[in-house]
């Protein structure tokens, strides 16, 4: 099977950029492993629950906090729509009432970390990024450069941004340019 290549392969050139000695932001990528979306209609809870239970999860979750269980991350992105990463092939769970989509090839994960990571985010999204408003385990869907993205706070000053692969280069450039004043470190491609 061919090895999937990150659309950011040519962008992730390791090094230090921007403000002299500062090391405010580190940008990197990580591999998105098996991303699936399940969606339904009125009876979504009833049809989604067996899938979630089989993964060891108790409920649908909320629109603010991601569910994390081992390597599995689950985001309730809409009332009748859930995104799951790190799960087995879910195709067999599809039915008339439950739409199952393999999105593994559609998203790229950009990682942002460092003491100025919240300042960088505040420059590119119109949402409060202070720790009290957006803490570890929380996620939000918003637009960067008018592109819909999902931002997951994975640590005190650490974020994963799921971006559409087709826009990954653009979003990377927006983050790169905005990070320069903070002192930017680029990690070797994951």
């Amino acid at each position, binding site marked *: 099977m061919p090895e999937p290549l990150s659309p950011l392969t040519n962008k992730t050139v390791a090094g230090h950029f921007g403000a002299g000695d500062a090391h405010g932001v580190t940008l990197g990528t990580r591999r998105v492993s098996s991303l699936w979306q399940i969606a339904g209609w009125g009876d979504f809870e009833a049809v989604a629950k067996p899938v979630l239970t089989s993964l060891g999860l108790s409920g649908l979750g909320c629109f603010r906090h991601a569910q994390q269980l081992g390597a599995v991350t689950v985001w309730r992105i809409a009332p009748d729509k859930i995104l799951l990463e790190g799960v087995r092939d879910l195709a067999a769970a599809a039915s008339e009432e439950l739409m199952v989509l393999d999105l593994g090839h559609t998203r790229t994960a950009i990682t942002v970390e460092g003491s100025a990571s919240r300042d960088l985010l505040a420059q590119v999204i119109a949402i409060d990024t202070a720790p009290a408003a957006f803490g570890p385990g929380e996620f939000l869907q*918003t637009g960067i450069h008018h592109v819909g993205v999902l931002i997951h706070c994975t640590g005190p000053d650490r974020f994963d941004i799921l971006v559409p692969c087709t826009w990954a280069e653009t979003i990377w450039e927006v983050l790169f340019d905005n990070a320069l004043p903070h002192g930017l470190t680029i990690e070797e491609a994951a």
Partner: protein
Amino acid sequence: MIRIKCPICGLRNETEFTYGEDANVNRPSMDEQGVQPWVDFVFNRDNPRGWHKEYWHHVQGCRQWVVLERNTLTHEIGNCELARDAKLPPSQASEAAE
């Protein structure tokens, strides 16, 4: 600049949304034979001065349709709820039948 409290995502900037249409307009019943209800449905809109119900799409968020109350005079934002939960006025068809 207006800010909209999405029932799913919370308080967000207007730039994350796109305007859909007047939420007071209901499609006539499919067996409606009269011409005027269809003309009203397709072409005729009120232009109220004051509170107005509108469909907006949270396109850069949860991607849900919401019904938003907006004051066309002051730009003040009122209640916002998921379109699927919204209580909308009776359709023009049923009004016409009365």
